[in-house]
């Protein structure tokens, strides 16, 4: 079978191709990863519940339909994290399905407070100008600091989820831009954003302080 040239050709190759620059080290061990994943699941759940509940409360048909679509996106994220938890040695996913802290719980309460039909701007601001940008931050930090080899599944899931977050953020932001047409609208959006941001800062982000890492001092031997 085959000619002699084929028979003598070696199959020995380096285990990593020259273009594969993945590294073993990562910032998060299994326990810390599970904690963060539990926070993600809790927050994604609260977000899809809020979007689902708000559908009936908004009179604008385009917003109503977007809420329905995005409700599913975030439920899918919650499902992904729900299934990831047992793979991270947490056999009771409900145990880690929790807010990062009390301030995060308060944030969700404040975000979901607007219900009246004339408060569409406030509903959109809470989700698309405060919460989803925080999700993008926390997911990006996690993806960029996780071990690309030992925790490849989480990195892969985050990449899928981040694509949804970017797309949903763009949808929501454009809806807001089309709805904010008067100085009073600008004031309402800014005031509500400021109120929610203050609570989010207190919470420290989706996974609490360190959601996007800790600040690096520039006074110690910076370039």
């Amino acid at each position, binding site marked *: 079978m085959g000619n002699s040239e084929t028979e003598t050709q070696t199959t020995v190759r380096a285990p990593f191709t020259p273009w594969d620059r993945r590294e073993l080290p990562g910032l998060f061990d299994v326990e810390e990863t599970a904690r963060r994943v539990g926070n993600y699941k809790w927050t994604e*759940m609260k977000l*899809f*519940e*809020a*979007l*689902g*509940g*708000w*559908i*009936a*409360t*908004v*009179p*604008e*048909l385009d917003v*109503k*339909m*977007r*809420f*329905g*679509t995005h*409700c*599913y*996106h*975030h*439920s*899918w994220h*919650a*499902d992904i994290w*729900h299934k990831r938890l047992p793979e991270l040695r947490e056999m009771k996913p*409900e145990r880690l399905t929790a807010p990062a802290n009390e301030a995060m719980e308060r944030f969700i309460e404040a975000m*979901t*407070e*607007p*219900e009246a*039909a004339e408060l569409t701007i406030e509903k959109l601001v809470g989700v698309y100008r405060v919460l989803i940008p925080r999700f993008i931050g926390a997911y990006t930090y996690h993806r960029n600091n996780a071990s690309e080899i030992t925790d490849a599944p989480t990195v892969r899931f985050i990449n899928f989820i981040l694509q949804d977050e970017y797309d949903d953020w763009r949808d929501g932001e454009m809806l807001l831009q089309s709805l904010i047409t008067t100085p009073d609208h600008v004031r309402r959006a800014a005031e509500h954003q400021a109120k929610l941001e203050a609570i989010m800062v207190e919470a420290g982000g989706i996974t609490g302080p360190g959601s996007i890492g800790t600040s690096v001092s520039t006074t110690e031997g910076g370039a």
Partner: protein
Amino acid sequence: MRQFFPVDDLARDERFVQTNMAERMKDARTTVDVDAATAKSRASSNRLTPDRHDASDGARSLMHGIMVGEIQALEGAGRTAHDFEAGDGSGDTIPFELKLDMARQAWDEARHVEISVKLSDWMGTELGQFAENTVLFEAACSNDPILRLAGVNRALEGLAIDVFTQMKEFGNLAGDPYLEFCEDWMLADEVTHVKMGSDWLRKVTENDPDRRKKALEFQQVVDKLFSFGGARGETDESPIGLARRFRELAGFSDDEVDTISMMDQEALDERKEAIRAFHAQADAQPTPA
């Protein structure tokens, strides 16, 4: 945001006009002929077919009804995803996976609204041109999530299977591949939603026969309500047929479909009787000079 949201507070823009089932049934205009002989003289069937003189208006009205029904189905699925905590299914809780299914259904219904808005436009209808009957969302307002599954996913989405089958056939007969294509896709989603309801109802009430019985009774009430006084049924007197094959795919047993068929016939007979009584009363009124 409140845990439960009343039908009267449903948010709509100013183009929409809402009504309810009682108001709708008071309307003396009807697509059901009480006198079979009269019906025969006009057409051999009440089914919505392109050769009917009122086919264009009938199809537009039905498509608008589908669109507002999809809006309410979207709202109902969203509310069920919101209103109940994740748990083991007892009391006020629903399984986490059921919440996920409701969120998925919300996305499907959002697409159905998009489709039916575009189809309405294609058929020359404007948003709000016909009144919106809010009975669908009412069925989604129960405090028991299992009653919502029975009323919405099984009864109402079951009706959607019948309506979409009818509209798909209408598109085929009318030579409208655009309509037929869209209805075919929506029909696939509805079968999924009904199956979802059938599966969850069985699973959650597995060890609670009383709760299951109540849910199935509620489903029958809603089924009868949604037969629109016999507008849906197996005989040609009803404009909308009963799609047996698709209902079986969605988890209905033969007995269940037979029961629905029987209730449709009863509803048709009751409505005919009511219309006869109405006409008799009108005839008895003295004619103005």
